[in-house]
């Protein structure tokens, strides 16, 4: 018998600290698989965010930098400009990328910075205990929208992929989900393609992954996947948002 599914080499042995059923783990694995398959682990440098994925540097088996909250695209820019032949990726949550890090992601994209961004949209701030994210759905109850997100006061969910797709420097942007096997496979293809975009020197690539936070959504992991499918996807349509040149 041969192994048909095994732990990717680009993950360390360290068990994830994520909550049970948290899809951060799935996406970590997909990223690692893509890196393995492209054979680029030795030349990949990852940038971890501040968010639940803050310990990503302990999981990805490549050189890593831990960025300040929201600044991963700037940090990645610094690395990539020094080492243009290396592969540089960031892994960021929606608080990190779509709130405090808005300027950094917009300008990395408009600069056409040749990096890959893995963007975890779980509609909430996980690490700090379930506050509203810019991606929180209308009506969604969080620690800082106790009466449900009211767009009149707290604004509307932000579609980062669509917004960044308007920028000339973005080369490849796709939104995927990991709520079932079919979508996990599609997510994997997208992530791989994002890295390939970078390898081809085409510029900024980003994959937005709709994800769950069972803990702060107050659901079981299984319920959370269902909620994602039923509530997030209608608000955040899946698919390729940009595919350049």
């Amino acid at each position, binding site marked *: 018998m041969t192994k048909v599914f095994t732990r990717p080499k680009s993950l360390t042995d360290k068990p994830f600290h994520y909550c049970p059923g948290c899809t951060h783990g799935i996406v970590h694995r997909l990223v690692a698989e893509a890196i393995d398959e492209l054979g680029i682990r030795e030349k990949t440098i990852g940038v971890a965010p501040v968010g639940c994925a803050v310990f990503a540097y302990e999981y990805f088996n490549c050189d890593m930098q*831990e960025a300040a909250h929201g600044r991963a695209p*700037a940090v990645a820019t610094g690395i990539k400009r020094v080492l243009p032949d290396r592969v540089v990726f960031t892994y960021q949550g929606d608080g990190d990328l779509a709130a405090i890090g808005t300027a950094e992601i917009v300008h990395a994209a408009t600069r056409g910075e040749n990096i890959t961004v893995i963007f975890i949209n779980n509609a909430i701030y996980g690490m700090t205990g379930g506050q509203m994210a810019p991606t929180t759905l209308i009506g969604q109850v969080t620690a800082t929208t106790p009466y449900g997100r009211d767009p009149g006061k707290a604004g509307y969910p932000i579609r980062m992929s669509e917004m960044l797709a308007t920028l000339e420097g973005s080369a490849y942007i796709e939104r995927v989900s990991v709520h079932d096997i079919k979508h996990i496979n599609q997510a994997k293809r997208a992530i791989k393609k994002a890295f390939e975009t970078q390898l081809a020197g085409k510029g900024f690539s980003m994959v937005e992954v709709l994800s769950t936070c069972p803990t702060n959504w107050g659901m079981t992991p299984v319920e959370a996947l269902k909620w994602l499918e039923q509530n997030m996807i209608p608000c955040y349509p899946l698919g390729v948002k940009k595919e350049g040149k």
Partner: protein
Amino acid sequence: MSKVLMKGNEAIAEAAIQAGCRYFFGYPITPQNEIPAYMAKRLPEVGGCFIQAESEVSAINMVYGAAGAGARVMTSSSSPGISLKQEGLSYIAGAELPCVVVNMVRGGPGLGGIQPAQSDYFQATKGGGHGDYHLVVLAPSTIQEAVDLVMEGFDIADQYRNPVMILGDGMLGQMMEPVEFRPLSSKRELPLKTWATTGYTGDRPRNIINSLFIDPQALEEHVKRIYQKYEEIKKNEVKVECYNCEDAEIIVAAYGTTARIVKSVIQKAKREGINVGLIRPITLWPFPTSTFEEWAQREHVKAFMSVEMSMGQMVEDVRLSVNGRKPVYFYGRTGGMVPEPNAILSEIKKVIGGVSR
């Protein structure tokens, strides 16, 4: 090598390039705009890279990334922009990354003005960012010294894996003086950057640039280790100029541009038969504490006076060093006003009058 006449800002930029700096991330702000402009022009010529970042926050985090990748890298700004870099600086110090940061100080607080000031002394030396850390702070007084300190600054940064700040002011940045780009007098053995994230090929441990230590005990150990490094820096890197201190009745403490003005005052005072000394800290952190201690013990020194372009910041370090042995006075102008020699002199006379009374 021959001398060239250069603006302070441009000389600082050129010095960085000569020191091997190939990456610059910055954002425009008066009065340091010549630094990014010079870098934008020169770096492509030497195979380097200039980026005008979208903000000072981004710039300092690009510096973080580039420094973590092993490069010699610089950023520069002026007061409000430096405030925005405080989180990043704290991260860089926490992750022990070498880099050089220039602050061409202008009047504050807030938007303030664009004329020269020294009112960011506290921010620079006590840690404007959060947590326990220090920048090495170098305060040049002439453009030649700025050039020399920038070049040495990169070495200091690399040797100790700590950010180095060049604290100038608008005047130093805008003025021109002859300057020579010369090799550093003391060559340091610099450690290889084996810790840099350049790709994990397996021939060394996996490299991680990080300042997070969720276990408080680990964080404390980390901080204490950094502070041991600081003790080394204090031992090895203090720079100070003593000028006319022998026989001085009063010793003025001043740094940067202000120290130049004080030198004019000292010459003037001499002509009037008054003996004034100057202790000019060149490293603001580490502060030349023992120099002050020593002179404070001399009989002939009756008092100290800190002269600054601020409401009184370095004077605290002077007091801490003198530690009550002699009275310590302060004279300052702020908001972009430059102290006038005559005004300083008359302050000195007042103090001498008071002390000898």
